[in-house]
């Protein structure tokens, strides 16, 4: 198993492996996305209080989950890169940052659109919104730091350290902001007793969450492949790959 993972860590192996993986991931993602959207927008009943406007939950909540999940992936891959100097882990880590930032932004925008009819304001300084905003800033910090350092291997190490510092801080930030001010509705899905959301609403939500996860996997693979080619542009396998492509086209 470890040997298998180790081989996967080599650049050409990863490249060909991801080439064969991508179509499957894309197909699964589209199916789940369509099922989740149909279930969420058509099948799920109208909420007795919020009417149809609650349906934005099918974008809002998975985005918010993904923004946190991707930060964890970014930090974990960063640790692997820092400790074992695996080039691929560094690339995965830094390729995750813009995707995570996009999800955080999406969660904020959909939250704002949802907040207008529900709370009567585009933006309130509510705890969860604020910590999501701070999460976005943490992402932007990582991206900015990576962009500012010329040598890309050093840059990804520095970004990984920053992501790690962020991981230690995220719970502290989250709970201090929570303690500071809260208006947001409590968690409705992850309570340990029966979730306070009806099954017909929950199933599409989970489908959407899965679809978002797959979308992230696709996006991170595409970004990582691109970054990998850029970094390995002087190596034999990359040159071979490019000549093959060119031959195939002509």
């Amino acid at each position, binding site marked *: 198993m470890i040997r298998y993972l180790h081989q996967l860590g080599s650049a050409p192996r990863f490249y060909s492996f991801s080439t064969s993986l991508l179509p499957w991931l894309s197909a699964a993602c589209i199916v789940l996305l369509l099922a989740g959207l149909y279930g969420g927008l058509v099948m799920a009943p109208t909420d007795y209080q919020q009417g149809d406007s609650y349906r934005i939950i099918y974008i809002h909540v998975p985005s918010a989950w993904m923004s946190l999940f991707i930060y964890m992936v970014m930090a974990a891959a960063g640790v692997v890169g820092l400790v074992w100097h695996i080039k691929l882990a560094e690339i995965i880590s830094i390729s995750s940052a813009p995707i995570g930032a996009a999800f955080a932004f999406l969660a904020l925008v959909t939250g704002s659109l949802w907040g207008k009819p529900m709370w009567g304001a585009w933006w309130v300084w509510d705890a969860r919104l604020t910590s999501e905003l701070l999460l976005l800033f943490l992402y932007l910090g990582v991206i*900015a730091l990576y962009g*500012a*350092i010329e040598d890309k291997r*050093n840059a990804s190490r520095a970004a990984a*350290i920053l992501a790690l*510092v962020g991981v230690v801080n995220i719970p502290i*930030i989250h709970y201090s*902001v929570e303690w500071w001010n809260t208006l947001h509705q409590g968690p409705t899905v992850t309570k340990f007793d029966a979730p306070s959301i009806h099954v017909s609403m929950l199933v599409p939500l989970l489908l959407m969450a899965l679809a978002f996860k797959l979308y992230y996997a696709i996006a991170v693979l595409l970004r990582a492949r691109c970054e990998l080619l850029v970094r390995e542009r002087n190596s034999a396998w990359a040159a071979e790959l490019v000549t093959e492509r060119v031959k195939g086209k002509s």
Partner: protein
Amino acid sequence: MNQTSLSNAFYQLFRRDLLLAFRHRAEAANPPLFFVLVITLFALGLGAESQLLKSMAPGVIWVAALLAAVLSLDSIFRSDFEDGSLEQFLITEHPLAILVLSKVAAHWLITGVPLLLVAPLLGVLLGLPSGAMATLMITLALGTPVLSLIGAIAVALTVGLRRGGVILSLLVLPLYVPVLIFATSAVETSTAGIPVVGQLSMLAAFLAGAITLAPPAVAAALRVSMN
């Protein structure tokens, strides 16, 4: 090669930084001056209504302290980076994290403590009740070292960059949020005469956490930056 003990190295580095700061006395006046100026600008921008100023005082003073701390951060490693002594710290036989702690302590003494000293003056300017003044001092005493310690990580990451200034504040300000929240809440509650032990304990916990966790992170970041 004569060996120095770790505690001696810590002390010598600390002394050297204080001495350097003493030779550049004029620079040490800048952070507190900036602190006072920001408060003055707030008063001018918000109007002279004393009730409004009083209610905003804790937040305004703390935000100004935060900004002053961020502006002074860059000097922790800048001159050492430029004259090459930072590389010497990296190759000594002493653990880098301890040396970093010594440098941050000296930096706090030079830039953090002056903020502490001018804070009562600013409290008076904004009409903070005298009961809250002691709390303000305690929160600054507990909070500014945390700012220096967390800031040192970001400085270590950006020290090799020519224009690190804006990035530095982007990296560091989100991490300062918990300190800001608990400190301002402590000052606000003590204005109402309610005990604030809870908030102060949280700040003390942040300080303990930062002293233990930040120096290794700074050391790792320095090794990446000097690579």
